[in-house]
Every structure is written in C-alpha cells, then in structure tokens.
C-alpha cells in the first residue's frame, strides 16, 4: 500500500518537473554537413581555432564570414530567423546579449557550459569563450625615458600635466562606429568614477578615434601615435609579440575584461554542427588552441605571462570581467545611446570638423 502511494507521488513530482524543465529537442538533421559562422573577429586571429575544429571534424564544411561588430548586429537583425547563420560570434557583448534577449538564440547543450564562470554565460544561450583584458598600448620609443602610466588615475594626471607630449598622439576607439569601443566606453562609465575626468583629458589631448584595432595598432607602431587607450588585449598582445616597437599595459587599478560571445541561432540549419563547434570553443582542447596558437586569450589565461612585461607594483591587478546579462542592454537603449554619444563627443571631440 505504501509502495503504491510512493509511486503515485513520484508520478506527481515527475509531472511537475517535466512541465518546468523545458528542454528543446535537438534537431539532428544532417542534410548538408555545413557550418556557417558570422563573426566579428579577425580571421587571422581565430584561424587556428577554426583549423583545429576542421581537423577534428573533417567532414564539416565550415563557412566563415567576417564583419565588424555593428555590421554584424545589423546583418543578423536584417535577416529573417530562418536565414540566420548557425553561429554568431562577437566581442560586442552588449549587442550579443540584446540579440539573445530578442530571441535570436537557442541554448547551448553540454556539460562544459555549466562549468563556465557565471559572467561568461547567460541563460546557456550566449557564452563567452575568451578573456580579453582592455589594455593601454604605447610606443616604446616615445616612452624610452618616461614612466608608462599603469593606472587610469596616473594616465589622467600624466595627460593633464604633459599635455604637450600627448597632444594629437593618443588614439582610442570611435564609440560611434566601433561596437567594442562603445561597450568599453560605457563600461568604463559604469565601473569607474574617474572616466569623466579621463574623457576630458583625452579630449584635451585631441585624441584620434579609430574604427579598427588593427589600424590603431599600426599607427602606434609607426610612431604616428604614442599611446592607445582602451584597446582589446587579444590583438594588442599578439601585436606586441610580433612587433618590438609597442608595449602593452594592463591597467592595475582596474582592467575591464571583454569575453568574445558566441550564440547558436534559434533556427540554425546545422544545429548539431553548431553545438559541436560552440562546445569545442569552451572545451579543454579548444581553450588550449586559443591559448597557444591563436591571437585570442583563453578563458583562464596565465595572467603572469601576460603581465611579465610590465612591472606590477605591489598590488595585484583588479580584473573586472564584464558579465553577460541584460544590464548590458542599458546603453543600447536609443535614448541612452544618443545621450552617451553626445556626452562622449563633447568630451573627446571638442573641436568640430575633424
């Protein structure tokens, strides 16, 4: 009698749990063994990862389309759901989060997803697979006899004191054109209390703004610029390794960390390939390839090797990973964005007609 009762109870509980755990069914169609990736990542930087995946899945026909972050967002929004690529990757975490919020993604399945740090996973639908600190880049030649500013605080004061030295020779992202630039600028405002002062200093130094990290780095290497503010660490470290003329500093008071975010389209045509690819990105193997072969930085990087170039003062670096979540959408609000860009323009670009 007791057993009968238990059975009924268990049935009841099963019913309850089934209705709550809404697992999407995995569509295992393999009509054409393709995988289409839309990504805002330099093909050069990510190529080793793609090659490693190809080596592991030789039958998969991988198609990679490169965009810049804002173009990518527009491209995805322009397409109907059924024409979406399988996987979308971008370092503009805010844009990625908003795409997911608007229902463009489906959950990534797998044990590795659950093991991700909470800031690198939202709803299991968008996951971060790199760890890219936002850094200062400087021209070594120019700073030969000078102390390189190691914190936001010291940068702001140095720029104010030596405005002649910095004038016209500082570069940063154009928050209007570059998705990552906008993300970093807004997160600076959220995270730090001195961002206003810094923007003002940058404005006084007539900072040049760029849409691409590569051209920024080129100009610093050539000596056209002497200092780059808030650059993506991944590309900068890679450039530093190749090019002796630039140095990279991870700010020591706080360092924002951007994680390249990937999601699988809600109606991806090649779901199993997409699942395999995203799981590969966060697998030990994938992370190993990212760390050792690509220009990207793996999720759990060897921080010591990154900072070995700079003399870390007695304090440890305060890394501040930007968490994936709906809060990132605040600055994407049209009204908020308009307001922010206006303030940014008036601070950074005081002279019209640049």
């Amino acid at each position: 009698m007791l057993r009968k009762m238990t059975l009924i109870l268990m049935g009841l509980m099963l019913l309850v749990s089934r209705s709550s755990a809404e697992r999407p069914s995995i569509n295992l169609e393999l009509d054409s063994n393709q995988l289409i990736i839309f990504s805002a990542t330099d093909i050069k930087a990510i190529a080793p990862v793609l090659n490693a995946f190809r080596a592991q899945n030789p039958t998969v026909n991988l198609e990679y389309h490169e965009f810049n972050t804002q173009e990518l967002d527009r491209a995805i929004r322009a397409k109907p759901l059924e024409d979406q690529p399988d996987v979308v990757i971008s370092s503009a975490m805010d844009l990625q989060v908003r795409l997911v919020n608007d229902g463009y993604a489906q959950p990534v399945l797998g044990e590795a997803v659950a093991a991700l740090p909470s800031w690198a996973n939202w709803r299991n639908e968008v996951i971060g697979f790199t760890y890219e600190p936002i850094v200062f880049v400087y021209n070594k030649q120019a700073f030969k006899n000078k102390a390189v500013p190691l914190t936001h605080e010291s940068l702001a004061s140095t720029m104010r004191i030596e405005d002649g030295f910095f004038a016209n020779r500082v570069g940063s992202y154009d928050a209007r054109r570059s998705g990552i630039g906008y993300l970093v600028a807004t997160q600076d405002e959220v995270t730090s209390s001195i961002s206003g002062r810094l923007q003002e200093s940058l404005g006084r130094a007539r900072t040049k703004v760029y849409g691409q990290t590569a051209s920024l780095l080129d100009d610093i290497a050539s000596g056209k610029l002497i200092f780059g503010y808030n650059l993506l660490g991944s590309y900068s470290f890679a450039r530093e390794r190749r090019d002796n003329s630039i140095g990279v500093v991870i700010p020591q008071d706080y360092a924002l960390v951007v994680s390249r975010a990937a999601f699988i389209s809600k109606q991806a045509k090649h779901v199993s390939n997409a699942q395999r690819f995203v799981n590969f990105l966060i697998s030990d193997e994938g992370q190993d390839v990212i760390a050792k072969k690509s220009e990207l930085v793996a999720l759990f990087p060897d921080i010591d090797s990154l900072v070995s170039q700079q003399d870390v003062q007695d304090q440890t670096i305060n890394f501040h990973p930007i968490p994936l979540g709906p809060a990132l959408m605040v600055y994407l609000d049209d009204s908020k964005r308009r307001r922010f860009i206006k303030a940014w323009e008036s601070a950074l670009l005081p002279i019209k007609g640049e």
Partner: protein
Amino acid sequence: MSMTEKSYSIRSRMLGRSAFLLLSIFLILSLGVWHYARQSANYSYDRLLNSASLSIMEGLHVYDKQVDLDLPYAAFEMMQLANEDKVFYQALGTQGELITGYPDMPLPAKMSVESPISFYNGHYLSEDVRVVIRHKRISEPSVSGWVTVVLAQTLRARHEMMIDILYRSFAVLFGIMACVMIVLWVAINRALEPLSSISKSLASHSLVSAEPIQTTPIQEVSPLVSAINDYQAQLLSNLALMKRFIADASHQIRTAQSATQAQLDIASQSQNLADLPEHLSKIRTEHDRLTRLTNQLLTHAMVVHRGDAGVIEKLDVESVVKQLLTECVRDNAHRTIDFSYQCELPLPLFMGDSISLREAIRNLLDNALYYGPEHNQIEILLQTDSSGIDIIIDDAGSGIPLELREKALERFQRLANDLSGSGLGLSIVTSVAEAHGGQFFLEDSPLGGLRARIHLPKEGVSC
C-alpha cells in the same frame, strides 16, 4: 453485490482506508502548496519588477519640451537578480507615443491611468512574460500628461523558485505522510493485539470449565471479556439447573416405576386370587401417577420450549378460560363442586402463547380439583387494570400454609406425600407466567382455601 460478505482483514482494511484518506489529504495539501508556491514566487519577483519599474520611472524627465528617458543602469542591475531572465521595456509619452524601448510590447486591451501600477501576464517574442505597467503624471509648463513605463520579464526565475518551494514542501509532506502511515501501522497492530490474545485464550479455554477468562486492564476490551464471562456463567448455571432437573426427573420416574414394579411383584406372588383386584387397583394408581408424571414432564418441556422459542399470537384470555371451564365442568359432573366464573370488564386482546397459557390454567384448575375437598367451591376471576390482566382461581380447600407456599412453587416438591402429584404443576405455571413477563402468586382465598393468581403485564410480551 453478493449476499454473503467476503471475509476480510480489519488490519488491511483500516490501513487501506487510512492510506486512501492520507492520500486524499496529501492531494489537497499538494494543491494548496502548489498555489502557495506560485503565489510566493510571483510575489517575490513582482516586487523586483515593481522596484525596477519605479527606478525606470525615475529616469523619465522633460528635456527641451520633450519627455525623454535616461534608462538607469540600476534598474537593470536589479532585474539581473533574476539572472536568467530576459528583460523587455518600453516608455510611452503623454500622447502614448514611444519614447524608447521595444516598440511592440504586449499592452492590456484597455489602458487606464486609474491605478498607477498593474501586473499582468503576456507573451512577447515567443516567451511568456510577466509585465508591469506603471503610470506617472508629468506636469511641467511645456509638457503635461500621463507617461507610461512598461517592463516585462520572462518567467524562468519564478518557475525555478516555485519548483524549489514545491520540491521542498513535497518532501516534507511526503515525510510526514510516511511517518503517519508507519505510526498508523504500529497503532493498528497494537489495537488489534488484544483481539488475537482473547481469541487465543478462548481457543485454549473449555466453556464448561468454571474458570473465567482472565480480566484485562485494557478498558476497551474488558467489556468483551466480562460479557464472555457473564455468558459463560449463565450457561453454567443453566447447565446446573438442567442437570438437577434431569436428576430429579429421573429420580421421580424411577420411584414411580419401582413402586409399580413392587406392586406387580406382590401381585404375581400373591396366592390369594381374592386379593388380586386390590393389587390391581394399587398398580393402576401407581401407573396413573407415572402417566401423570410423564404428561407433566412433557408439558413442562413443551412450555419451557415454547417460552424460549417465543411463540406469540393474539389471544383472547376470556375464551381460553371459558373453554377450559366448560371442559372442567363436563369432566367433573359427577362431583359436587361449585364452579363460578366472573369477568368484570371486557378484557383486551393479549399477545401470548395460548397453548402454554391453557396448560397453566388447566394445571391450576386440576390442582384445585385434586387437592380440594369433595364439596369444593372453585371460582375463576378475570380482572384487568392499568398494569395488566390477573387470572385468579380461588378454592375453598384446605389451602397451603404461608410458610410452605414458596416451597410449593419448587419442582418436585409435593406437600403431601400420599397424594399422587407430580410436583411439577405449579412449576409449569410459574414458567408460563415468566415466559409472558408476568408473575405467579399463591395467596389466601376469600373462600377459605388457596388463591392462585397469574399476573400478566400489559407490556412485556404484549405489544
């Protein structure tokens, strides 16, 4: 349904019914718990939604004659407390125009600014959402009117909280039910234990042994034990009475038989033929006695049996008595006996056994005739009052002295040994009176002899 009830076990029946009851209670409680879980999950996250919408409302300001929203970061950080849920929002201006946010949020069919805040469930971008809609009046020189903030959140955190509460409550409920079931099982077994111990002691117990079943300290069981013991005691006393009766009856029969036998022996050994008629008459007397004894014994047995069997019919006492009297007068026409019959009021019909009653009255009449003198006067009186009917037979005989009347009612007690009474007559009358719920009395007769009175109550057997 079958007419014969199938055998069943009280234990499993009680357990089964308790389990069924518990299950019903469990189901009802589960329903309550489910409701509670849903309520509290909604309540908690509605508060979150509420404060976030309030915070967004704070960001609405008038700039350059236009309402604009400076979306507060804090509002979304608050929403991130439900860290897995999507967030949708919208701000509407005084004319209902979109200021910022998602343009096509699910709005209630009829928007009223009566209540500053309201919650509802909706569906947006293929997700079920909980929506809060909040109104605020802006009155600036340039702009005035109601502005609206709509904020929606998916239900994942709510569901998680609800399931969490449900699981915990179910676990507790289930635990309690299991404990109750175990306690019930033990309790039922304990409660049924005396039953099996009594049946065990009954099985090993001989009914005719004088030893009663051991009394039990259990209050609920002791009535059963004492009932069994009472039953046994009654059975034993009845048995003793029967034994004595049989012993007495056989003694009487043997006595009569041996007397007859002795007279026969004397007659067969007698040489004198002239003595033979005398012997024969003695043998006849003895034989008459034996016959009378046998008849009385059979009558007694019949009366007792009918009394036990409870044979009841509607009877008219008057006609029974009249018929008997008629027979009696006819049989004793050769004797100088005065019969009189008196019935004051018409008697009501009486529920009883006419055959037993007839035997009782016949015995009384026979006694009056037998023991009375040659010139006797016998008077039959039928009286009725509120308590019942009295059948009274008076005679003018010698009567029975007061101290011997009680003895006269006992079986096989003959007051005069020389007379050939069976000693059963009055005992038959007593039995009949008792079987009808009445009583039998021996009293003094106004005629000088004995008055025999049978009192039959109106209630009792009659109904």
